[in-house]
């Protein structure tokens, strides 16, 4: 197991390096720091000096891969690739265009993200599994047919409508909760109600339908017939046998996203004014702040890879075939 984990960790390095090279190619190859400077200084009539000044200010006045002017190791280290890209590996994200340190900002903003994302995730998972199990229990009945039609209708609605509709209906008209805002601690609970509820509801169509399909696939297997032949109750067969086996494919989809919960949800956070990483990212995209986007891309990949490793571990936990071989 230790050897396996070590190998997985080592395998993560080339992937992160690949992500790094890809983003570097996007931001420094296809477009260039000169382009960035021009956007930020505004318009076409920007002098070459102004561009240079902006680049010096933001540390972009370096060659891409090889610094002929440098001395010794500086030839390699005083380059954009090392300074702007490789330093991400040390979780050194540098400064945003407004001069603030991205690392500190991330550390501060991930908690609000987590406070919204965690309950959304777990309540959602429970709700989707319950819905799917309910439909599978009543399979081949009208309840299942109507339920599936309802799910397809729900998944045909854009996530934006859930947010906007929820805000108007629940906050503006019925005044169940404040329309947006955030406060830490218990006093902030009222602000959580709406985003969490909407987050859960907006995913129900897709996820419940997916889980239902997984359960139905398991329900058709031979061991389920054996369980019936043993005279077990349908309830026990559903929960002990079908759920137990479907847990394996469900886990692959679920565990991998857990680390990414830190990044929060772009849409929810920006609509509900939650000062998390999601709204941070969306603001950066809209302000065309490349430094933040690069940092978030790297962080997202890192968390994904951690998620993959956790998935493997959870496999070993639920599947004896993995655990014991």
């Amino acid at each position, binding site marked *: 197991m230790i050897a396996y984990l070590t190998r997985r960790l080592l395998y993560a390095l080339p992937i992160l390096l690949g992500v790094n090279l890809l983003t570097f190619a996007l931001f420094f190859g296809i477009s260039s720091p000169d382009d960035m400077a021009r956007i930020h200084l505004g318009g076409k009539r920007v002098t070459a000096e102004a561009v240079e000044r902006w680049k010096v200010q933001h540390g972009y006045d370096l060659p891409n891969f090889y610094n002929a002017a440098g001395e010794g190791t500086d030839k390699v280290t005083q380059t954009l690739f090392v300074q702007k890209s490789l330093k991400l590996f040390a979780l050194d994200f540098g400064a945003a265009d407004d001069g603030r340190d991205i690392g500190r900002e991330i550390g501060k903003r991930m908690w609000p993200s987590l406070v919204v994302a965690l309950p959304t995730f777990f309540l959602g998972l429970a709700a989707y599994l319950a819905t799917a199990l309910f439909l599978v229990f009543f399979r081949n009945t009208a309840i299942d047919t109507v339920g599936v039609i309802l799910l397809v209708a729900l998944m045909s609605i854009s996530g934006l409508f859930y947010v906007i509709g929820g805000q108007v209906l629940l906050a503006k008209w019925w005044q169940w909760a404040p329309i947006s805002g955030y406060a830490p601690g218990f006093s902030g609970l009222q602000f959580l109600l709406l985003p969490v509820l909407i987050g859960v509801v907006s995913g129900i169509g897709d996820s419940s339908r997916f889980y239902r*399909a997984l359960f139905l696939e398991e329900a058709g297997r031979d061991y389920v017939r054996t369980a019936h032949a043993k005279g077990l109750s349908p309830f026990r067969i559903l929960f002990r046998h079908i759920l137990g086996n479907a847990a394996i494919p469900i886990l692959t989809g679920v565990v991998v996203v857990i680390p990414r919960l830190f990044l929060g949800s772009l849409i929810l956070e920006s609509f509900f004014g939650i000062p998390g990483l999601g709204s941070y990212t969306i603001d950066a995209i809209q302000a065309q702040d490349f430094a933040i986007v690069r940092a978030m891309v790297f962080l997202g990949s890192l968390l994904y890879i951690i998620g993959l490793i956790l998935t493997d571990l959870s496999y070993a936990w639920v599947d004896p075939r993995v655990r014991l071989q």
Partner: protein
Amino acid sequence: MINIQPTVLISDAVLFLLLAAVGVYIWRARRSENARATWRGVFASGTGRWAAWVMAFFVSIGVLDSLHFRVAVETPAGQAQQYSGEVLSVLDAILTPLRTASEKTYSAPFATTLLVKESVTLADGSVARLAPAITHIHPLGTDKVGQDVLYLALKSVRTGLLIGTLTTLVMLPFACALGLAAGYFGGWVDDAIQYLYTTLNSIPGVLLIAAAVLVVDVQIDAHAEWFNSAAARADLRLLALCAILGLTGWTGLARLLRAETLKLRELDYIQAARAFGVSHGWILVRHVLPNVAHLIIISVVLDFSGLVLAEAVLSYVGAGVDPATPSFGNMINAARLELAREPVVWWPLATAFAFLFALVLAANLFADAVRAAFDPRGAR
């Protein structure tokens, strides 16, 4: 006789190419007994048939909106004929009453006056606050700049369709080539392709797309001289979005195809072909590809609705289509502020919701019918 000049935007050309490809597929499928029977299965169910009709309606709107032309303008005699800079489509021509019937600003559906009051100097010289009368009746009202909302929604259909289909066109060659190669050859080819898609997958989707769109934006801004009209510019931005979505979106299907090819590779008929000394490329084209075709078709129709929805979210994030391109995403984006107004301007949002819901629901139901007919295990 109006003098017009047909104009073909790049996306039009690609779309018609795609339609031609679908036409060729239909022609071939009609000759094959198997394919005919399978497609009959799609249309056998009531929902499948209805969904197909609704889809056909939307597609015909999209196609009419892709036949572009420019109208001739008055040109002094002796000079070469000049054409207007505004690119119109056949749909625009059909909808001329809606298109040209613009107001000053918001008006509710079937309202007779504008939403906002203006100071009007009456005949007796006194000044009154009145909502001015509108010039035309608008069944779904008008938006901020007084444009008919129904017209806007119909124009948005093309954008959604293009994103749903062109993205697939970009994605398919990558997904097929890499998925089949990884599954069939195994070894280092498999390792390399798996590395590639794990790397791409590891980047949060929206961020990767947003980053790529940002970069494309910078390029478009820096090269204004490439475009001879605003339509061409918006068109390129749309194409770029499709390309980016396609280049980042092939991993799912590639994984599916890899897994299926891995199974097929061990089957006796592939082994028999190898025992006959048939080349690998030939085996992939003649034996493997036809036997994974159902997966490709299912995944293409399933992806369509997701892509149409993704456009809305991306446009909201600021990484979608050009803000000037009519699209559901842009309509919803504008609606955020409109809902905060007093009185509430709800009709653009409601219209976008209804159209988007109808399109995506039809696509989802159609996809279900296709999956049920094509999946050998008999889909649920």
